C-alpha cells in the first residue's frame, strides 16, 4: 500500500496543470462559457490530444498509453481544479470506456484511434426521462431488422451528446422496463437519419443533450458486446464515470476550500480578518476534514473502478459518491456562506465551483441513491 503519485504521474499531473494555468485562466474559461456554437474549447481539446490525455486510459494495443483508473484520477483532479469544460468524462471515460471494456477489436480500431487523436468524439446516451439514476431503466426499443437493428426512444441529459460524433446508446429488446436483462448497447452515428439532438448547457456550463431516436437503423457491426446482456458493461461504465466524477469533485472542493481560506484571511470586518472568528475557523476545519475524507474514498473508488467483480466495484464507488456528495454539499454551502454577498455573485469564480459540484451531485446517482445501493450490499454481506 502506498499513497504517492508515481514519477510518471507527478510529471504528467504537472504538465497538465501547466497547460491549464497557461491557457485556461478564469477569463479564458469565461469566454468559452459565453460561446453559443460550442460548449467547450476545441483548442484545449486538441491540446489534450497532443498531451496524450485522450489516450491515457487505453491499452497500447488500442492506441493508448496503458494508464490505469488511478491515472484517470490524476487527470480528473486537475480538471476539477481548473473547471475544464471539455467532454473528457463523456468522450474518453464513458464513450471510450464502453468500447474499451466491451467493444470488438474492429470497433476499437475504428473509433478509439480517431478519438484518441482528437478527430472524433464519443458520448454515452443511457439514461431516459423516467430512469432517474437507474441506467437499467430503459424504454428505448431495439428491434431486429435484417442483420441489424432499428432503435426508437428518448435519452435524457446525455453528457457530451451536444458535440459527439458517435453515441453509445442502450436499448431493450427483451424484459420489462426496469429489468437488467434484455439490454444491448449500440454505436449510433449522431447524424444518422432519425436521430435528433436537442443540445444545451448544464448549470455548470458543460454540454449535454436530449436525444430522440426514431426508427434509427444500426448495423450488426455497431452492436457493442453481447446482445441483450449489456447490463454488466453498462454498470461498469457508469461506475467508471462515477469514480472519475468523484476525483474531479476532489479538485473542485480543494479549490473551493482554497478560495474560502484565502477570503477568511483577507476579508476584514469588525477590525480584523473574519478568519479570526472561532465559528468560521471551526467551519473551515470541518470543510478541510470533509474534503480529506472524500478524497480517501475517491482514491478507493478509482483503485477499484477497473475491477470486474461488480460487488467490490459498486461498493467502493457508492461509498465514494456518498462521501463526495455529502462533502460537496457541505463545502459548497459553507463556502458561499462564509464569503457572504460576494459568494452569490456570478462574477466571482466560487459560484462556478458550486454549480459544478451541484451537477456532480445529480449525475450518476445522488447521496440517497448510493446510500441505498451501498446499504443493500452491506445488508447482504
Amino acid at each position, binding site marked *: 500500500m502506498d499513497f504517492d503519485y508515481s514519477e510518471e504521474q507527478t510529471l504528467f499531473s504537472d504538465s497538465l496543470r501547466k497547460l491549464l494555468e497557461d491557457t485556461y485562466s478564469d477569463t479564458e474559461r469565461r469566454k468559452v462559457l459565453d460561446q453559443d456554437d460550442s460548449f467547450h474549447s476545441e483548442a484545449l481539446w486538441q491540446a489534450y490530444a497532443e498531451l496524450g490525455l485522450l489516450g491515457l486510459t487505453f491499452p497500447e494495443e488500442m492506441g493508448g498509453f496503458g494508464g490505469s483508473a488511478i491515472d484517470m484520477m490524476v487527470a480528473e483532479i486537475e480538471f476539477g481544479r481548473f473547471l475544464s469544460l471539455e467532454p473528457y468524462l463523456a468522450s474518453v471515460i464513458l464513450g471510450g470506456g464502453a468500447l474499451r471494456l466491451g467493444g470488438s477489436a474492429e470497433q476499437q480500431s475504428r473509433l478509439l484511434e480517431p478519438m484518441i487523436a482528437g478527430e472524433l468524439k464519443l458520448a454515452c446516451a443511457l439514461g431516459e426521462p423516467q430512469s432517474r439514476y437507474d441506467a437499467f431503466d430503459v424504454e428505448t426499443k431495439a428491434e431486429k431488422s435484417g442483420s441489424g437493428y432499428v432503435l426508437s426512444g428518448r435519452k435524457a441529459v446525455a453528457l457530451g451528446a451536444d458535440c459527439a460524433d458517435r453515441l453509445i446508446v442502450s436499448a431493450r429488446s427483451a424484459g420489462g422496463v426496469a429489468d437488467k436483462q434484455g439490454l444491448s448497447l449500440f454505436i449510433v452515428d449522431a447524424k444518422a437519419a432519425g436521430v435528433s439532438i436537442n443540445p*444545451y448547457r448544464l448549470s455548470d456550463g458543460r454540454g*449535454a443533450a436530449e436525444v430522440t431516436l426514431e426508427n434509427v437503423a444500426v448495423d450488426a457491426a455497431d452492436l457493442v458486446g453481447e446482445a441483450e446482456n449489456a447490463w454488466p458493461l453498462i454498470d461498469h461504465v457508469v461506475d467508471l464515470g462515477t469514480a472519475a466524477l468523484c476525483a474531479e469533485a476532489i479538485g473542485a472542493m480543494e479549490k473551493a476550500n482554497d478560495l474560502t481560506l484565502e477570503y477568511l484571511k483577507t476579508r476584514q470586518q469588525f477590525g480584523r480578518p473574519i478568519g479570526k*472568528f472561532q465559528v468560521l475557523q471551526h467551519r473551515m476545519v470541518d470543510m478541510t476534514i470533509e474534503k480529506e475524507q472524500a478524497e480517501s474514498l475517491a482514491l478507493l473508488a478509482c483503485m477499484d473502478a477497473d475491477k470486474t467483480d461488480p460487488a467490490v466495484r459498486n461498493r467502493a464507488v457508492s461509498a465514494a459518491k456518498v462521501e463526495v456528495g455529502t462533502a460537496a454539499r457541505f463545502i459548497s454551502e459553507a463556502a458561499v456562506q462564509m464569503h457572504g*454577498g460576494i459568494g452569490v*455573485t456570478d462574477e466571482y469564480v466560487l459560484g462556478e465551483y458550486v454549480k459544478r459540484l451541484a451537477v456532480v451531485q445529480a449525475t450518476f446517482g445522488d447521496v440517497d441513491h448510493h446510500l441505498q445501493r451501498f446499504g443493500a450490499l452491506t445488508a447482504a454481506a
Partner: protein
Amino acid sequence: MNLNFTPEEEAFRQEVRAFLAAKLPAELVQKTKTGVRLGKEDYKTWQRLLYEQGWVSPKWPTQYGGTGWTAIQIHIFDEECFAAGAPRILPFGIGLVGPVIINFGNDEQKATYLDDIRSGEVLWCQGFSEPGSGSDLASLKTRAVLDGDKWVVNGQKTWTTAAHWADWMFTLVRTDPDVKQQEGISFLLIDMKSPGVEVRPIITIDGEHMVNEVFLDNVEVPAENLVGELNKGWDYAKFLLANERTGIAGIGQSKAEFRTLKEIARHERKNGKPLIEDPLFQSRLAKLEIDLMALEITNMRMLVEEQKAGKPGPMSSILKIRGTEIQQQLSELSMDAVGVYANPWIEAALEANWNGEPVGPEYAPARTPYYLFRRKASIYGGSNEIQKNVLSKAVLGL
C-alpha cells in the same frame, strides 16, 4: 392555552380566501407556481390590489393604514396569500422604511411618503451594505456632508435589491466621522433620479438580476430628507432590522413551497414508485414538514408576544435563522427531487411565455436556479452568524 383557531379567525380566513379568489390575477399565480421570474409590474399589480382592498400594510398603526389585525390574523393572511399563489410584497417600502418614517419621521415626511409606499406607486430600495461593510454594517463609509440646505453624498452601496426598479432609496450615511462608529450615522432618503446616482447590475449565481451596486457621486439631497435626528441613524437601523427579522421567517411562503415540493415528489418516480414513497426521501420530507410545523407555532408564539410588547424582541432572531434554514432545505430537497433533470440550465424557460422545447418536466428548470437563489437567505438581513451573536448576547447574556 389553545392552539385551535377561533370561529372568528376561521371566518377571517374565509374572507381572505374570497378576496384572493376574486382578485388575484391568474397570470400571476401561473408564474409563481412554475417558478417563472417576476417583473416589476407583477409586484406593482399585486401591491395595488392589496392597497385597494386596504390590506397592504397590516402591521402599521391603523391611523396610517394598518388593519388592526391580531398576530394570528396576520399569520392567516400571509398563509392564504402564498397558498393562493400570490407574489410576495417587496419589503423595502411597507416592511422597512415605512415603519421608520412612522416612528421617527416628521409629519411632512409622513404626508409625502407613506401613501405612495402603500400603493406601490413609488418603489424603494435599501442602501445599507457597502463593499467593505457587510456583517460589520456600522463601519460604513458613505459620507454625507451638509452644504447649506443640501446633503452632498459620496460613496458606494452594494447588494441593493431592486435598485434598478426603485424610485427612492433609504440609506445609512456617515454624517460624523469623528465619533464612535455607531454614533455618526444618519438615515437619509435619496431620490434615485438625482444626478450622481448610478446603478450597476450584479448578476447572481442563479443568473438573475435583482441586486445592484449603487454609486453615489456628489449626490445632492435636500436637508429635509433626513429622517429623525442627526447621527441617530444606527438606532433606526436596529429598529428596522428587528422588523426585518420578524418578517423573514416566511412561513406562508414555505408552506406553499412545501406543497409544491410534495406535488413534485408525487410526480417523480424512483424504483417504479412515486418518489414520495421512497423511504429516504419520505423521511427527509417528513423532517422538513415537521420543522416547518414547529416553526409555524414558534412564529405565532413569538408574534403574539411581540404584539403584546409592541415591538420585536431579540428572540425573533430564531425566526430568521430557522426560517431561512427551512427555505434553503426546501429549495435543496426540490432540486434533489427532480434527479438528473436538475442539471440542464434552461434559463429561457424561466421567462414568461417561453415556448421552447421542454427539457424534463415543467417544474424542473427552476429548481437549481432557485436552490442557488436561496443561498443568500442565510446571508442577508444580518447573516445567521450575526443572528446567533445577537441571541447569544441579548437572550443568553453570554
